[in-house]
């Protein structure tokens, strides 16, 4: 773009707006970290804004000392690993088949799949199917009902369709069938796309609240999100511990809750900057083809 000779109002306004966006996004996290690390006296007086006062890690000791949070972390990791593996396998194989021009009925099958983006049986009939398969209150109730995201399937199909036909032909000359071509040629070629789709699946599984709400019953199967909701929103925080530590029950509960939020968000905040480019890449493929 050509640089205009004088600085108008526009760049200033735009810089101000963008700065507001950045602050509005980051400040809530900064505030929660500051409160969770502050002494209760300062929290009660509402003195904490950006920086902790009376620095201590009591709240984190309390949160991490609760065996329930470790069980929930373990469950979440288990569901995320298993769910992502299944989703990635089913989605990539299905997407590859749909991307091949010699695949018979592929247009009808694609229509069949795309239709589910706009219409579905709804919450209760799906629940009845899951229940009749006896998946309720098992790890499979987490891994299977949401295994394929139609959006991700279409993304991968678009990606495979862009791989030159010659690579497939060369595999055929080497005597490979379609399954061999997929696993020996396509998978090694598409590591970046697999990483992108795997990350999409992993994040949606890690964050999922609806699946466990509908399909899990036993507390020892609950993933992190359900535990968090019970601790923070349903107000069942272990208040016995809270009163022992601080004077005003309600206020100290605030820093305890912020500490709980930070403990469960930290894994995402730490991993996010490193994997961000894969997400954007995936969204870009979707955008261009959208």
């Amino acid at each position, binding site marked *: 773009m050509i640089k205009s000779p004088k600085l108008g109002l526009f760049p200033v306004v735009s810089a101000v707006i963008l700065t507001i966006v950045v602050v509005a996004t980051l400040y809530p996290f900064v505030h929660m970290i500051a409160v969770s690390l502050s002494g209760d006296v300062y929290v009660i007086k509402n003195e904490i804004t950006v920086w902790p006062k009376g620095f201590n890690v009591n709240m984190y000791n309390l949160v991490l000392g609760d065996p329930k949070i470790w069980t929930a972390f373990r469950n979440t990791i288990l569901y995320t690993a298993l769910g992502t593996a299944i989703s990635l396998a089913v989605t990539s194989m299905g997407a590859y088949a749909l991307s091949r021009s010699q695949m018979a009925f592929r247009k009808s099958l694609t229509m069949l799949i795309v239709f589910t983006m706009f*219409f579905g049986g*709804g919450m*209760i009939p799906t629940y009845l199917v899951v229940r009749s398969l006896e998946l309720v209150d098992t790890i499979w109730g987490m891994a299977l009902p949401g295994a394929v995201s139609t959006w991700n399937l279409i993304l991968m199909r678009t990606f495979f369709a862009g791989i030159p036909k010659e690579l497939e032909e060369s595999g055929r000359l080497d005597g490979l069938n379609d399954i061999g071509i997929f696993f020996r040629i396509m998978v090694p070629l598409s590591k970046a796309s697999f990483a992108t789709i795997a990350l999409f699946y992993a994040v949606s599984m890690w964050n999922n609240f609806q699946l466990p709400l509908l399909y899990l019953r036993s507390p020892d199967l609950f993933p992190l999100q359900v535990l968090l909701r019970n601790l923070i929103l349903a107000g069942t925080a272990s208040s016995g511990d809270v009163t022992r530590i601080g004077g005003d029950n309600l206020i100290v509960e605030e820093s305890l809750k912020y500490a709980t939020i930070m403990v469960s968000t930290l894994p995402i905040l730490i991993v996010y900057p490193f994997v961000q480019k894969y997400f954007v890449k995936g969204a870009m493929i979707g955008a261009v083809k959208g």
Partner: protein
Amino acid sequence: MAQASATPRPIGKGKPISAPKAHRFKRLWQNNKYLWLLFLPCLIYYLVFRYAPMFGLVITFKNYNLFKGVWNSDWVGLKYYRLFLNNPDFWPLMRNTFLLGLYRLIFGFPAPIILALLLNELRKAAFKRFVQTVSYLPHFISNVIVASMVIMFLSPTGGLVNNILSGLGFEPIHFMNKPEMFRGIYVLSEIWQHIGWETIIYLAALTAVDPQLYEAASIDGASRLRKIWHVTLPGISSAIVITLILNIGQVLEIGFEKVYLMQNPAIYDTADIISTYVYRIGLLQGNFSYGSAIDLFMGIISLIFIYGANWISRRVSETSLW
């Protein structure tokens, strides 16, 4: 996406059209068996978890009985649809669902476009990348966390927002107990969570705008804003239209999780929507037929919405999903 499936594609391997039927099927099977094998798990998934529930919708015309099962329960015709249409909750639920989706569309749809335009005008690449990285972040935070943050920040006792208000000399406001505030709070939290992520589609479209158009506009003496109006916006108009159609189609498909997590009985007047009602009254209280009937009713209205949006867009702008 649907666009790609609509384009004509070459018929595989140039097989002769006049070949005998049996021979053709044999050939089809030979050419395809491994691909179909790869596709099989995906097909099973869609049949079991997406299409079987659609057939399960017959229970909306039956009095679903736990012991008799879906197929053996007694037929009751349109009883549950009549029940819903005559329910005093019907109009409030429709209104809440529609208005929440509409406000989400009116305020949530332009926001990322404006942000993308501002980002596009930035000259410092490092600052641009920083703003992008930061603004995408909340998209990856779970709804449970976002709802918790909203409720805690708005709490009348020690919540961040009320701290600021009382610092300015105002009385604390019990935000989450006021039905008239729920829609605004919900829409703001949606924008906070997704504005950055939703810019990606527009930023991708912006990279395709020809730089020569900007030069030509500069030579003609166009200002910054005029260039945005006459070059940038037309350049991304098809991305805008496609996103708009998709968003209109989803006006009634408000995410269940977040509304469910943010609502409480004090604000059901505005915060109770179809999906949360179906969960509470249908699933939790065991009214399976009634709940499914509501879901199907809304599903059909939603289908009409997206079909209508697509139809209008095809007439007006020659851009459409299918």
